[in-house]
């Protein structure tokens, strides 16, 4: 990039990819690079002070989702948490060879499941319907006597659709099968109280809730046995050895605190901004649709398809206006195939390639959303002018919009 990116000019709507570290989080982390540099395991005070802060961080993360501090294991992020949960459970119960998951998981779970398949495990990948929802009857029917673990995401990173993990976890409990949920997108965005739920393992990631990158956690309910996947020291009760990433842990603790404080704003103001943006774009732009059931969704995410245009082109045009978002098109996925989530939902290719994910955060403002509503429609109409599939008659299509 030749042009410097001036942060205040940028409208950042890609918060499901990563978030900006909150100023207070950054400040809480700083002393741990220099003054408070000790190893929490040390016997001297240099380590002792730090150990206390790590304990506090554990409590703060626990408080965000109704968990005991002892139930939190620090990891390097969401992907490691997913791996540790699934492989850790299988390793501790080697007799059982069946896994239940879904087609729309994050690669952290999906790739792990596919790898396990190649190692002799049976995996049931549950389908989703057009709105991205699971069929609970099919879920219940997929259990087998040798089912070792269920891993189902809480909120989908691309569409924001929420799975009924509360109900699903209860059923798994009845069947005595450990239930893991990848809650990387849910934690910090929707209220979670694990004390009232039957979820046994839960993955979260620091950088999705305005914390630093390179830190995550796995919640493991008391009494649930998992084996480590890394070998080393005694840290995290031997479940995840290695000297603690103290600055990031402290940052995640602070970020959890702030997420709890901002929870109401996220679910009211941010949700209204998201709805306003979504409604305006879909009503202004013909041949567009919201992907994913709008009934049960994260408050910050909107996945919209614009037919007959391609996502990467849309993103680059948006970039010219200094607006940041994501797309599920093939060109942006890093492979030649478009989003596995939208394909699993049976969205037609004409729509998938032109999908844009807007993911907001508490940092976004009314002004920003108004700017996008004003500028965005012409990006789509400009690209449609050069698209061989677009016909002017499509533009006269009248939408019944509620």
């Amino acid at each position, binding site marked *: 990039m030749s042009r410097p990116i001036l942060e205040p000019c940028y409208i950042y709507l890609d918060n499901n990819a990563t978030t900006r570290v909150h100023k207070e989080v950054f400040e809480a982390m700083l002393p741990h690079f220099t003054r408070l540099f000790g190893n929490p395991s040390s016997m001297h005070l240099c380590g002792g002070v730090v150990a206390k802060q790590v304990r506090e961080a554990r409590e703060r993360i626990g408080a965000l989702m109704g968990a005991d501090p002892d139930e939190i294991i620090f990891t390097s992020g969401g992907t490691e948490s997913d791996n540790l949960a699934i492989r850790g459970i299988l390793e501790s119960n080697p007799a059982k060879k069946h896994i239940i998951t879904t087609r729309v998981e994050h690669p952290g779970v999906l790739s792990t499941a596919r790898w396990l398949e190649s190692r002799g495990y049976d995996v049931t990948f549950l389908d989703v319907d057009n709105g991205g929802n699971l069929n609970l009857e099919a879920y219940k029917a997929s259990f087998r006597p040798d089912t070792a673990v269920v891993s189902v995401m809480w909120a989908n990173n691309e569409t924001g659709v929420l799975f009924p993990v509360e109900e699903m976890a209860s059923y798994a409990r009845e069947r005595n099968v450990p239930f893991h949920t990848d809650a990387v997108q849910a934690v910090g965005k929707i209220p979670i109280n694990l004390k009232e739920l039957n979820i046994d393992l839960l993955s979260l990631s620091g950088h999705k809730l305005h914390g630093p990158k390179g830190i995550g956690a796995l919640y493991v309910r008391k009494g649930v046995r998992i084996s480590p996947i890394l070998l080393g020291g005694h840290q995290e009760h031997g479940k995840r050895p290695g000297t603690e990433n103290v600055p990031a842990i402290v940052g995640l603790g602070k970020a959890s605190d702030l997420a709890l404080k901002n929870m109401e704003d996220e679910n009211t103001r941010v949700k209204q901004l998201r709805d306003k943006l979504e409604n305006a774009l879909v009503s202004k732009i013909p041949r567009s649709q919201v992907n994913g059931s709008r009934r049960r969704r994260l408050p910050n995410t909107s996945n919209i398809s614009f037919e007959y245009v*391609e*996502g990467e082109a849309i993103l680059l045009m948006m970039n010219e206006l200094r607006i940041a978002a994501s797309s599920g098109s093939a060109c942006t996925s890093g492979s*030649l195939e478009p989003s596995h989530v939208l394909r699993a939902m049976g969205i037609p290719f*004409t729509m998938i390639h032109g999908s844009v994910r807007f993911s907001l955060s508490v940092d976004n403002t009314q002004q920003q959303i108004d700017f996008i509503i004003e500028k965005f429609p012409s990006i789509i109409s400009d690209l449609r002018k050069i698209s*061989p599939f677009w016909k002017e008659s499509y533009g006269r299509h009248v939408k019944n919009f509620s």
Partner: protein
Amino acid sequence: MWDYTDKVKDLFLNPKNVGEIEDADAVGEAGSIACGDALKLTLKIDGNERITDAKFKTFGCASAIASSSILTEMILGKTIKEAAKITNRDIAENLGGLPEEKMHCSVMGMEALEAAIENFRGKPATKVETGEIICKCFGVTDTTIRRVIRENRLRTVEQVTNYTKAGGGCGTCIENIEKILKGEIDKRTKTARDKEKQPAGRRMTNLQKINIIQEVINRDIRPQLQKDGGNIELVDVDGNHVYVNLTGMCAGCIASTMTIKWIQEKLKEFVSPELDVLEGGDMI
């Protein structure tokens, strides 16, 4: 984020020759919406088979749009015969290069042009694929795969996927792509070996040979010698005997036999394997 050249970015934001010629003399289409990119090319062609107007419409990413735009600029004013010689490499080069993963956009341009030329000759606007479909996900035939391997001198399956998309979906055809690739590479090495066998003198006139030798000396040999304070002059070429004088620090250097040997290797590599290098001083 893709690392696009300024040319690609410029043509994406300000594409040239966008549109569709209503009474076109030739129409060429390539790609499909399922594949994620598609191009429709329309041409006006005069009585001398010269392309007098070219317009495009493209569904696709920035590099697909830029490739289409540059293609229209490249073919305008050319005869059908001249345009037919354009390869995907020419398209990519005119854009100042494309990221390897985006080379398939240049291939799409070439395919649409081919389809348009065939359409002008009376065939349908969408190229009728000859050969066997290898990649079912993206509908790529062995003919296309072979051609792109040859024209771009590809070496790996990953490159074939980047250039044609073949193998980029379910991946079940990768084994077949490997076979095709191996066949093409074997052919390539065989042709190279056959070429080597031909005596250089028969393919080049003496003047051509001297010019090439001089060029290699200037480009690859002299700069190296100058680093050590030496220099070289070409004295004469007689058949396959090349006479040179080493000057400067090289003159009388005890390592000069080694230097002559190294020069000989360079000339064998770049000019002809038949050449012998001798110190010219002996002759004069």
